[in-house]
């Protein structure tokens, strides 16, 4: 793949490597008949006819980012559903993330299914709400921690409302907004996310999201004493993907990044493997899976690990965009 891309870029745009690339139109025109696209997801999905498809909108990447937003939102929905029902919804605000993550999922499904080249206000609203609810949730969780005796102590960080969890909802919202930003083509303008160039911003967001998620996993796996050595993997590996993705955000040359893709792939796989690992961990709780009603709540959170896969998906989309545009 790399050699093909280099050959192509090198043949057509010899100065590509010093970041003074061609116009986007030229670039895209050049790629129309590319038999080996930069990323397979760029290809139109069968069964989803791309009416009004414009080559200047990376609908494949848009779908990926919507998918990432949906995966994070699903993780939030399942996780907060379990945790907040464990807390018996003693504060009605505890329903909010369920509603918001559901909206985020619906918006993402809708966004992924459509190929129009403009943002939709309802999707924007859903994602905006998710971003805000995540922020407010973080504030709530911080309040929950600080009002307990000991305040910001290990004990409270371990067992009070998880400080990092609501951020996943904000992240889902941000990813959704990124998808809308990339989709929302304005002639002559490169896609933007919150005023920043979309591709590097998305890469940066992915890197931050991966680091934040890793921090949360570190805390909770430390709480679980790393009693199974596998518990070190999601602490040790995602930061590599985060570093490589951050590097892409900070130095958004138009070039392929096989290392970053490899590590994002590993991170994505980790998210899936984590579900299996947590299912195994659940079996080690008293009564095992026969006692699922208790152990789904008390055991390791089965819906949590795919947050890594969602973020990796966003990272893939960011890399694909960068591979196309660089930071133009």
């Amino acid at each position, binding site marked *: 793949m790399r050699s093909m891309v280099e050959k192509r870029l090198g043949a057509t745009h010899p100065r590509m490597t010093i970041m003074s690339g061609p116009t986007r139109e030229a670039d895209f025109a050049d790629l129309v008949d590319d038999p080996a696209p930069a990323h397979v997801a760029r290809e139109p999905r069968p069964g989803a006819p791309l009416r009004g498809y414009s080559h200047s909108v990376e609908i494949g990447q848009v779908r990926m980012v919507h998918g990432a937003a949906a995966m994070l939102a699903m993780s939030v929905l399942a996780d907060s559903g379990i945790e907040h029902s464990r807390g018996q919804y003693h504060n009605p605000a505890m329903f909010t993330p369920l509603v918001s993550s559901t909206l985020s999922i619906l918006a993402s499904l809708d966004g992924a299914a459509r190929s129009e080249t403009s943002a939709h206000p309802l999707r924007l609203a859903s994602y905006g709400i998710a971003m805000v609810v995540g922020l407010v949730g973080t504030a709530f969780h911080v309040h929950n921690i600080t009002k*307990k*005796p*000991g305040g910001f102590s*290990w*004990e409270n960080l*371990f*067992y009070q409302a998880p400080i990092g969890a609501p951020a996943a909802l904000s992240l889902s919202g941000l990813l959704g907004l990124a998808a809308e930003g990339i989709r929302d083509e304005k002639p002559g303008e490169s896609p933007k996310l919150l005023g920043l160039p979309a591709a590097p911003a998305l890469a940066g967001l992915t890197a931050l999201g991966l680091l934040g998620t890793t921090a949360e996993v570190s805390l909770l796996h*430390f*709480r*679980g*004493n790393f*009693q*199974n050595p596998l518990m070190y993997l999601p602490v040790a590996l995602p930061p590599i993907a985060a570093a490589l993705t951050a590097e892409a955000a900070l130095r958004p040359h138009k070039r392929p990044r096989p290392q970053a893709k490899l590590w994002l792939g590993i991170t994505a796989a980790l998210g899936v493997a984590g579900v299996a690992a947590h299912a195994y*961990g659940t079996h*080690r*709780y*008293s*009564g095992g899976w026969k006692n699922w009603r*208790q152990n789904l709540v*008390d055991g390791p959170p089965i819906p949590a690990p795919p947050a890594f896969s969602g973020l990796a998906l966003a990272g893939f989309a960011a890399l694909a965009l960068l591979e196309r545009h660089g930071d133009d």
Partner: protein
Amino acid sequence: MSSDPFERPRAADGRAPDVFKMGGWIPMRQNRDGDEVDFAIVGTGAGGGTLAARLAEKGFSVVAFDAGPYFRPLEDFASDETAQEKLYWNDPRVVEGADPIVMGGKNSGKTVGGSMVHFAMVSLRFRPEWFKSRSTLGYGADWPIGWEEMWRYYDQVEKDLSISGPINYPWGPPRPRYPYRPHPLNAAAEVLARGCEAMGMKWTPTPLATVSAPRGEAHPCVYRGFCRFGCSTNAKQSTLNTYIPRAIRAGAEIRDLAMVGRIETDARDRATGVHYHRDGRWRFQKARNVIVAGYAVESPRLLLNSATDRHRHGLANGSGLVGKYLMTQPNQAVYGKSKDEIRWNKGPPSLAITEHWNYDDRKDFDGGYCWMGQGPLPIEWAKTVTASRGIWGDELRLAMQDYNYQVGVKMVGECMPSEANTVTLADQKDRYGLPVAKVTFGWSDNDKALIRHALDQMEMSLEAAGVTDLFRQEEDANHLGGTVRMGDDRRTSVVDADCRSWDVPNLFVCDGSVFPTVGGVNPSLTIQAIALRTADRIEQLAARGDI
């Protein structure tokens, strides 16, 4: 469902119960009575069970006896306060003195694993100065062991039991991080914490011997709350599911329902084995060495019951101190009512602790104490309310309706060693025909001052936490100590620092009875640390032919 554990021994026919599997078995090496084993150990609790594992792992042949049954935690530990009384030493004893000790659940166990099977899992280290309290603090007696050495054995036992404790322990010299993370606090523990914070005292999640994450075949704690009984999920790291399986794996034999009645000695003042009652008859196990680990009542009783013409006042009693310096820890409490629901039966009872008064010497009495959160189950609570408030009938019934709002804190304090507090033999005989123990005890003036101070402080802390309708439980005591004290002078102690009798060189006593002072914390971790040290010392002594 497995057979009745009281009916016939389970550890037999080359196998012992697998405590982690319903109806499961693990292979166990067995010895014949005529085989002269390296060690016959009497008792399988914190002292004996730990020693059995370590000595077997060091290659010695070991038979460990317990008068109680071999329980299967997954099958035998019902969530029933009354049924769980089967775990205690309920055989008759005579108690007397100014403040007779109530014998039973708080100070005895009669099961493989000993009282650790029903202990509250509180796993605390001594304050370093307590090992030399006579020299450094001016009371009690010095131990013949230094705290630095004990600190190393504490490290080891904390690892062996995967103690779940706080990241940083607020008192004493640095210690390694606890092997497992602390448990979440329940509401009762939060009340303790708020009270401490209001009084400007430090508090911490209590280091507990119940795992907060999976460990081998043990499941993490489910916060069921039957913690001062048998743990039916194996989260509690008692001798029964830690050192005992290790001992058997390493080749030790455990004999359940085997009551040792007498230690045999020869004309050279060496122990030759133990007489024990099992399967309805008395038998004799030959042994090169005997270790007594029956705790502060049964250990001296066995020594006294093993008197011969050469040892008229009991075995190992050249000092005349066997059975003397009995201590019991003050266990008074203050209770009250919270405006918020507490549900203190949820989770281990003692999830938070303050050791403030163990480390602050600005008080006008000797010794220290800690206090912990509490979670008495309904029957115990009804007894407490009746005994402390004197209410009965309808008034009691109404008071019990506040159960989910009750909250309280309970002390574990240091009792001064006094020669007048004793374990002796009564005229009465038990079902084996052996004279029963007579336990004589009275609080000293210092003990009473310590208890008053603690009750005042605990009450202030609960008031500060907003608890109302306070009342005191003024009569209670728990863990024992003393009666076979260790020391470095054969005139003033029964055993030396290695828990070895001064008089009978191949006889050891290793349990809470060797404590010269009892400290203001629960004793199990210290007993186990001493057992680990004793195993190492025995190995060293054996290596140089001294055993």
